[in-house]
């Protein structure tokens, strides 16, 4: 027994790891769609080359991040298309940003409080404003990092690049005569948070399965990736 003890120890570790592997493979979020729900942390998921319309072409010092430092010094480091979703530190609420060609829409939600923010993305940074809220963050191919102010509270956040079905979703419509705006943030690990605004009153949001409509008070609405709403007020 004593001589075999170390082997039993190693075997127990291997069995435990194998069990975790099987359990993880079986319970992986949205296992039906192979590439879905995966965020390759180690790789840039967005194009970090400069977009033609993305900000002034002056040789601003690039954002001090190793993943984009290889870009030419004259290039704007702002990702042309990017989505980020992460957690507000010390708050538990989620933050998500969608960037398209120099414009950005963002959303903060902790299930009770929400805020939509909009603004411009240039020089690898975004400054977004909402009703009583503000986000300032630096962007690169792998994450958005910055701070979030909602009312008087302020949190830092780091949001990894998100790939569908993770990301930010928004629904707009009319439900029983009241204007409905719904927001959802879905993280790569399957966590999500959402809130409805029905005629100015917050209401709990149904769980979102990205790509499927949700039913609010008997009316079907279809949440869309938030970047589709960049052109709307």
């Amino acid at each position: 027994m004593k001589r075999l003890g170390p082997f039993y120890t190693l075997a127990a570790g291997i069995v435990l790891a194998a069990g975790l592997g099987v359990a993880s493979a079986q319970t992986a979020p949205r296992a039906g769609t192979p590439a879905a729900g995966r965020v390759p942390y180690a790789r840039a998921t967005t194009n970090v080359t400069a977009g033609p319309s993305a900000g002034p072409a002056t040789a601003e010092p690039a954002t001090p991040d190793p993943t984009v430092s290889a870009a030419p010094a004259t290039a704007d480091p702002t990702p042309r298309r990017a989505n980020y979703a992460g957690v507000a530190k010390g708050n538990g609420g989620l933050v998500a940003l969608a960037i398209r060609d120099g414009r950005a829409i963002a959303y903060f939600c902790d299930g009770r409080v929400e805020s939509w923010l909009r603004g411009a993305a240039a020089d690898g940074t975004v400054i977004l404003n909402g009703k009583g809220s503000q986000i300032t963050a630096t962007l690169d191919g792998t994450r958005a990092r910055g701070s979030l102010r909602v009312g008087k509270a302020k949190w830092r956040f780091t949001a990894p690049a998100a790939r569908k079905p993770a990301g930010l979703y928004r629904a707009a419509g009319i439900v029983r005569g009241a204007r409905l705006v719904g927001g959802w943030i879905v993280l790569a690990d399957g966590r999500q948070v959402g809130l409805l605004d029905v005629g100015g009153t917050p209401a709990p949001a149904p769980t979102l399965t990205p790509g499927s409509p949700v039913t609010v008070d008997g009316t079907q609405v279809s949440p869309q990736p938030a970047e589709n709403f960049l052109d709307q007020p």
Partner: protein
Amino acid sequence: MTAGQPETDHRTASAPYLLPLLAGGLVAVALGVYGRAHPPTGYAVGLAGFSGALAMKAWLTTGAFVLAVVQLLSALAMYGRLPGVTAPSWTGTLHRWSGRAAFLLSVPVAFHCLYALGARFDVPRVMVHSLLGTFFYGVFVAKMLSLPRRDLPGWTLPVLGGLAFSALAGLWLTSSLWFFVVIGVTL
């Protein structure tokens, strides 16, 4: 070296190290290659009851590190290096079982690291943590395979154990301490 030294002596003298170290090295390299090569899933099963995967890992690692301190002290006692302490008869059992518990606590953590996140080298903290993690399991396997052997020099186990403890301490510093400082001491 005298001419009388037979060749077989060399083999018996070097072979005992070779097997455990080779196995440990292979394990370390295999973990590193796996962590680098497979696409991170961003998701892995872990223990319930924590606010998130990072919190779970931070606390399990802290548990393993506390047990590793027990390891260090019980080993020092067994080797008679604690002044004024005579190792009680149960020290060996304590050492074995605290080591097992520490190892098993570390497995879900390492599993999440490798399966969900992968080995990364983009930030110094993450790079050091990735390298130490693979190194730790290599040393641990080498130590486990060395334990049943009776033909090894006396310093083998203390050296391997010391390396494993140092690696675990480094892992704790680059993960749990970072988590407690940056995110906060939350369950």
